[in-house]
């Protein structure tokens, strides 16, 4: 009897060991633990329609849905408040102070938003295109790094001093369809400028162009975040959607849009720019 008991115990132990070792080699999803942080990144790969983004390519310009040929001289935007969620609905929001990124297409190094999230398998990515209204009204001590309002506007600053607020999305270039008068570009440089901002107002409600982008990762690859790897969600950001989004418009009709009612239409187009291409785990 004693011998029988011993055999049973041995068999059971072996079975348990076997199961355990099986599981381990299959990369078990780690328990969701908010203090068990691992590296995670989102890559913002800027494209224009079917082509990569090149600056000032006057010999082979891009063409929008209105048939207008254009080139690009500047593309930059704020990404903030990154959040991930697992298939069973566990969510993690990156600590706010580490969650502001300025993607500048002139500097390849800025294309990654690098954050830390708990180890886990994520099927959904959420972020803000722009700077949330709370941060937009915070004291100057909280406006450091990419949010520092001292950056020069002409060379890519993303802050409006006269109407305290950030430019969320800045897209500039040239097109021959732009007139040389006050309705176009009176300097004759045929430039278009889209500076889209507006956080909703400090004391009275004003235009709110903050856009929250939700991306389902299930089709093109979930993010398996582990301490020993660099999980990277690779997004294509198609700037052609500025013109060809749900509120499609022509450059000739709206060559300059900044803080104005029309900016609301363009901001809606911006939500269509982000497409999940693949995930590197």
């Amino acid at each position: 009897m004693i011998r029988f008991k011993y055999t049973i115990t041995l068999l059971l132990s072996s079975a348990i060991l076997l199961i355990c070792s099986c599981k381990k080699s299959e990369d078990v999803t780690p328990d969701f633990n908010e203090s068990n942080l691992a590296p995670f990144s989102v890559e913002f790969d800027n494209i224009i329609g079917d082509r990569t983004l090149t600056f000032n390519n006057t010999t082979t310009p891009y063409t929008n849905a209105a048939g207008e040929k254009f080139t690009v001289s500047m593309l930059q935007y704020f990404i903030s408040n990154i959040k991930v969620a697992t298939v069973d609905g566990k969510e993690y929001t990156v600590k706010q102070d580490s969650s502001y990124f300025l993607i500048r297409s002139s500097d390849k190094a800025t294309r990654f938003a690098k954050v830390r999230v708990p180890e886990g398998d994520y099927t959904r990515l959420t972020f803000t295109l722009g700077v949330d209204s709370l941060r937009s009204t915070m004291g100057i001590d909280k406006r450091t790094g990419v949010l520092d309002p001292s950056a020069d506007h002409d060379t890519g600053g993303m802050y409006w001093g006269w109407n305290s607020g950030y430019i969320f999305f800045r897209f500039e270039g040239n097109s021959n369809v732009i007139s040389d008068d006050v309705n176009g570009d009176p300097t004759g440089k045929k430039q278009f400028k889209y500076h889209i901002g507006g956080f909703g107002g400090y004391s009275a409600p004003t235009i709110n162009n903050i856009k929250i982008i939700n991306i389902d990762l299930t089709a093109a690859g979930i993010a398996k975040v582990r301490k020993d790897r660099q999980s990277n969600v690779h997004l294509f950001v198609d700037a052609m959607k500025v013109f060809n989004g749900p509120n499609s418009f022509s450059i000739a009709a709206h060559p300059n849009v900044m803080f104005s009612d029309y900016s609301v239409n363009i901001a809606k187009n911006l939500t269509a720019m982000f497409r999940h291409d693949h995930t590197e785990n």
Partner: protein
Amino acid sequence: MNKKQLIIIFSLCVFVYACKKSDVVEAQIQTFLGFQKPANFPEPIYNLAANPVTKAGFELGRSLFYEARLSRNNTVSCGSCHIQSSAFTQHGHDVSHGIDDRLGTRNSPPIMNLAWNKAFMWGGGVFDLDLQPIVPITTHEEMDERVDNVMAKLRLLPKYTAMFKNAFGTEEITTARMMKALSQFMVMCISSNSKYDKVIRKEAGVSFTPQEQEGYTLFKEKCASCHSEPLFTDGSFHNNGLSLSPVNDQGLYTATLIATDRYKFKVPSLRNLKYTAPYMHDGRFLTLDGVLEHYNSQVQDLPNLDPGLKNGTRLGIALSDADKTKLLAFLSTLNDEAFINNPALAEQ
């Protein structure tokens, strides 16, 4: 008591007296009172807890306020268009006169009691004093400079690295530190020692003349709904019926894009009017008589005209010549000579 004892006692007295005197002087130098809310003022709006005024911070702010390096070619300082003797306005200029003789579109407003302001600029848009200096520094007609470039210039000067260290603990010059120092100076520009203030605070021997008192009564009846005491502005934005100017400045609308904000401008304080002519957002009235006549007979029925300026078909505020004389007498009690002569606020 012999002569020797007397001499010793006398010497001791002199010694004690001398000690006392130097202590007092020392105390005067050492004691920096920081931000003191005048007894007849409400609680400030500026968040002093996040930026307490210190002696070193205030002095740095003062240096920056009078620093011409804030402009592109080092010619224009804040103090160029905000002159203390004019209650920190640019007296005699309808619109401000900036770098390279460029002219703006608005009258330079006073740097005065800003700790009680909830919005900045004639047309709003800026809601935090710490963010305000970015506007004049970067505006083409004002200083036409980059904030990052200003800091680069300051970092080369030992005077400033030392002052930043005194004020903030290290020599590092950042946007936040520069703006907070400027705010420390600006919130200290408090005008609260006019005759009116002394009467209200019941300071000994100060009272209104009968004419001033009548003017005060008229003021409360006809002006105080917007120019509310004790700051003589409620800080809000109104359309006071000024005819449209050729530049078609749309005021608050530009910052909010709300149709009902069109042609609304911030209510200016009525303090120190003696020093701050000309008046209105574009400096169109050279005298207070001109301002009062505007309200009496020149108010235009424009969209968003303040309802207080329209009673039935009567536009504006009826003011007889006698009313005007009394109002002007009262308004003159709001002039604060101690403020425009305060040596602590002057360029050192």
